[in-house]
Structures are given as C-alpha cells and as structure tokens.
C-alpha cells in the first residue's frame, strides 16, 4: 500500500528545509539512519573554523524562520510535466509542533486546510465538509499535490543537533563569506538522506542551497533559497525552490509574502474544530 502511494508521490520527497522554512514545520523522513562514521563531534575542514563557530552558524540557520508563534502568507507554485498550478495560503504556527495552513486561492480549493499537531496531520476538505486524519502509512504521500510530503510536516530535525557537519570549503565573495558544508545525519536522526550538501552565506547567516543525497550518495533533490527580503523584521530568503533530479523540469516554489514573527496565537487555535471554522 505504501509502495503504491509512493509511486503516486514518488517524486514528492522530503524537502526538510522547505517545511522547516514554514515556521514550526520541520523536515525529515521515516527511514533507518545509515551507519555513521565514528565521529563524535563536528569536524572543521579548516583549522580556522572552530566547532563552536559551525554550531552557532547552523543554529542560526535553524532559527531563520522560527519564532515562538507566527503567522503569514505564502504562495506555492507547483510545476510538473503535466500542469502548473499556484496556491495561495495563510498559515499559523506555534513552536515546532503546531501548524495550520489554509488555502485561500484558487477558488476550487479555497478552504482546504492542513493541521499538524505533534505527529498527527489532518486535512479539512471544504467541498464535503469533512476532516480526515492522514494515517502514518500515508505520511510519505504528497502534501497538497506538491513535492513535499505529509511527513515533512511532522518530523523535526535541526542541523545543529541532528547532523555531523564539516566545512569543505570557505571563500570570501562580494556578498560575504560563503561556506560549503557536508552534513551527515547522526545515527539517531531518522532521515533517509546519506548527506546534505549545504551552501550558506556565513556573513548573512542565511542558506543559499541544499542538495540532498540518497543512500548511494547520488544527488536527488535541490533546494535553492533566493530573494532575501526583510519580512517580519528579519532578513530571510523569501523564495524557496525545490527541484527533483528524477523529474527534470518539475519544481515547487514557495514564496513568503508576509511573515509576522511572535504573533499571538493561542494553542487552542490548532484544533480540528478550528479547521472548519476558518
């Protein structure tokens, strides 16, 4: 059953940064972590870059879109070989485990909503006025028809805590110091990537690109962070684009149109009852 649904969503893999970029949505994927090298700490590729520095940088990257609670507007463009569609959505989030996303356009899908509370994901279908819970077996299924999965909404992983990081290259450019890093999941991290190659702007403390590698070390997914803007008082990449190597020409593009960090959102807002009231 999982295999069949995965065939439908086979190109819709985890893009942890995209979900992480939606406040309180985190990325990760079920799967057995690969046997790791017996590194016990973050290794710096160059003697000048300390372990503390790497930790702090990754932690700051993790915090890019986070706030204790937030709300905002995003638009998502999904392009496949068969169609192109654009969704506009409102979202609300609290910490890392509560998120509510509601489609505001197009009219056909207006009112469709996703609620994540802890590890549970619910979808509200306004056409039939029903709320369905996404079973654990369907977590790898596509979210909203995009290249994200339902599991992306559930799992939380943080670069600073869940990966062994190594700076493979550091160079100074006109826009700042650019780091190239290899991030390997720790044994306890439940993801199926063997490695994430991260390119970030150390000076601006912002991600530029992430390339996810499968168990064979082959790159299968790329996330590009672009168009840095001041949103909610912070400089954040406002456009995130994920492409899948297996499907050239396809992508999902997420655009942050508005973010309000630390807005007042009560925990009771995140309930299945609220899904229908919105």
């Amino acid at each position, binding site marked *: 059953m999982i295999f069949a649904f995965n065939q439908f969503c086979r190109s819709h893999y985890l893009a942890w940064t995209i979900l992480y970029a939606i406040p309180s949505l985190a990325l990760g994927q079920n799967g057995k972590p690969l046997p790791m090298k017996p590194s016990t700490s973050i290794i710096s590729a160059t003697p000048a870059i300390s372990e503390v520095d790497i930790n702090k940088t990754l932690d700051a990257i993790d915090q890019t879109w986070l706030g204790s609670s937030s709300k905002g507007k995003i638009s998502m463009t999904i392009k496949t070989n068969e169609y*192109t569609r654009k969704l506009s959505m409102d979202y609300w989030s609290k910490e890392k485990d509560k998120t509510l996303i509601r489609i505001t356009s197009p009219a056909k899908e207006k009112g469709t909503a996703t609620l994540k509370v802890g590890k549970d994901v619910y979808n509200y279908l306004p056409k039939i006025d029903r709320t369905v819970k*996404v079973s654990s*077996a*369907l977590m790898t299924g596509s979210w909203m028809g995009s290249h994200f999965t339902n599991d992306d909404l559930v799992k939380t992983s943080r670069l600073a805590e869940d990966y062994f990081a190594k700076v493979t290259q550091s160079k100074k450019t006109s826009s700042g110091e650019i780091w190239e890093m290899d991030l390997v999941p720790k044994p306890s991290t439940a993801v199926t990537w063997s490695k994430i190659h991260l390119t970030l702007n150390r000076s601006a403390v912002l991600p530029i690109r992430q390339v996810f590698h499968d168990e064979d070390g082959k790159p299968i997914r790329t996330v590009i962070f672009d168009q840095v803007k001041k949103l909610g008082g912070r400089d954040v990449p406002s456009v995130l684009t994920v492409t899948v190597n297996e499907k050239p020409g396809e992508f999902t593009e997420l655009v942050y149109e508005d973010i309000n960090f630390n807005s007042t959102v009560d925990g009771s807002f995140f309930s299945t009852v609220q899904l229908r009231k919105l």
Partner: protein
Amino acid sequence: MNYARQSLRNLTRNYRRTIITTIGIAVAGFLMIMWGFFSNGFADTMKRNAIAMSVGDLQIHHPKYRDDPNLFFSMAIAPSYFDKLTQKGFAAAPRRYAFAFAAVADKSAGIELRGIDPEREAQVTIIHNHIHEGQWLQNNNPKGVVIGRGLAKSLGAKIGGELILMTQAADGSLTSDLYTVIGITRAVSSKIDNRSVFLTNDAFAQLMSFPSNAYHEIAIHVLDPNLKTSDARLTVANMEPPGEVSTWEELQPILVRIFAYMRYSFSFSFTLTYLALAGLVINTMFMGVLERTREFGVLLALGTLPRQIILLVICEALWLALVGAIVAVAFALPFGYYIQLNGLDFRAITPQIAVGGLLIESVWYGKISFAQVTTPLVFLFLTLPIASLIPALKASRLNPITALTGR
C-alpha cells in the same frame, strides 16, 4: 501353450486371491485417476480465477503505462473501437486507474481507484460474482463504490456507510468527494482485497477531471475458447489498437511461473504416488506368486519350461491389469463427473483464501481429461508385468522337488 487361456484359468482357480489382488489394483488405478482429476481441476480453477478475475486474456495500454502507471499515460478511445472488437469475437472492458486516499471516520488508507464499466466488465471478468456483502457497481449509481474485504476491515467500512475519496485530479487540483459503500468483495487477490476501490468510469472521470474518452487499460476476453492467446493477440494487434497489446502471460509472469511450478509439483507428486502404488502392486504380485509355490512346482514337474512359467505369470499380471483398469475407470468416471459438476465442498473446513494473487477456492472441482484417465492405465499395464517379473523369475527357478515337498 495358449498363455492367455492358461493364465486366465490359473487366476480363476483361486477366486478369492484373484479378487483381492484385482481390488488392490483397481483401488490404485482409481486413486491415480482421481488424483489426476483433482490436480487438473485445481490447477485449472486457479488459472481461470487468476485470469478471469481481473486480468483477462489480453490487455491494451499506452506504451509507457506498464513501466510507469501514470495518470497521464492514457489512451483516447472512440466508442466504435469496442464495436470492432465485439465483431471480431472479443469482449472488451475499458478501465481507469488512479492513486487516492480513502477515509472512513478517523481511519485512512492509500488505495488504487479503479474505474470500470460494470456492464462491459461483466463480459470480461467474473469479479462481479465475488461479492461478499452488498452488491456490485451500477452505472445508475455513480456514488456507489465497492471495496475489498481487507480494506473494509482496516477502515471499518460497512455497507451503506460513507467513504471519503481524496486525490489529485488530472488538472493537478486537490479533489475529494463522498461515496457510499454498496459492496464488499470476497477474497480475490491481495491487491484488490486491501488496496482497491471500484467505482464507475463516469464517477472516476467526474472526480478526477478526466477526459471522457480516455482510458488506462482495455481488458479483453477471447470468446472463442479454442483460440490461442497468442493468436488472439495477433488479431487485436492488427486492428490498429490504441496502444500496446499484451497477453496475460506477459502481464503476469509470476502467475506463469506459479502455474509452471504447480505442473512440476503435480508431476513430482504423481511420480511419488505412482511409485507408492507400484510398491503396493509389486507386493501384491509377489505374495500371489509366493502363495503358488507348490502349483509352480507341479507345473515344473510336469515339464513346463521356466520361460513358460515367466510368460504365464506376466500374462496373469496383464489380465489383472485389464480387469483392475476396467473397475477403476468404471468407478472413477462417474465420480469424476460428479465432482466436475458439483465439486467437493470444504467450506466447513477452510474458507476461500487469496494467496499471492491467487484465489484458492474452498469448493474443489475436478476436471476430467483423456490424459488423466489413460496415463494411470498405461502405468498399470507397464508396472504390473514388470512387478511380476521378479516373482516370475523366482518361480521359474524353483526346484520342483523342493516346491512340492516344501523342504
């Protein structure tokens, strides 16, 4: 010496021994024939179920569909194409497929949507006869769906209950709708039992925003039972099909291997059965000759040559084989005919089960065939004389004095 007459006279000299020996041979022959009937029927039923349940004799797909069952790899088919197939002696059923999400209350599952035309489907497959509860699809009830028993159990779905279907339509939009469960199938295959939701082609098109003349698959049943699948495929391929034509063997290579394995297994079990029965027959003949030591002693004392003794014993074996074969066939044919029509009902012991895509019925039907009758008989006519050879040789080498006096 007239060996036939003499050997027959020898047999009639001791009716009790002859009858007991003949019964033993007849029982062996009967068991071999019946085992052949059952094996034949069992294999035939499984094969028929596997093909007729959902595969059909042939299928037509978009050239890329089998490697990548993509919603968009469909074929545009005009209604007149089905009429052309009918004229050529084929029944055809158009189908549509999509992956979706089914939910009942707080339970959900990933499923495969199967859009079918109930009327055409009934001409190609027999799945409409395998309803456990409720009824099959009706074209005039587009909101009615039929689900597999395993899926009904995992979702807690009941007849008359609500089923939510949610998926991504052909235009990429999220789509959902409410349906009513009108039927639950019996065990068919694990895919159908646990992961399938059947709905009408029209309902599929409406939910999925799917073109009205597009289909993913045409399943074809060859109406002429004497037409080989390979020949039928050639005929359909020459009719400008809208896609690639495949036989059931190409579509279900695992089934082909399973059936081949079954044939080898049956052949092996036949061999073992025949060997066991050969032992029974050899023992019967051996004891029969040993009991007649004095008689052979008399014959030898009267001048009968050793080779004549051997030929006499072999002729006796052939007579026994003949009578035993007649009795075996006389009982086996009517009984075999009965189980071919009515089957043996094991429903009290075992329910119908689906294993690895194969349906194992709980009512076992036999199938009479010429080979299943003649093979055991040929075996008897070969085995009995061979079985009697050793005791015949022993008898021919008897010392007449020892044989007569017992010392």
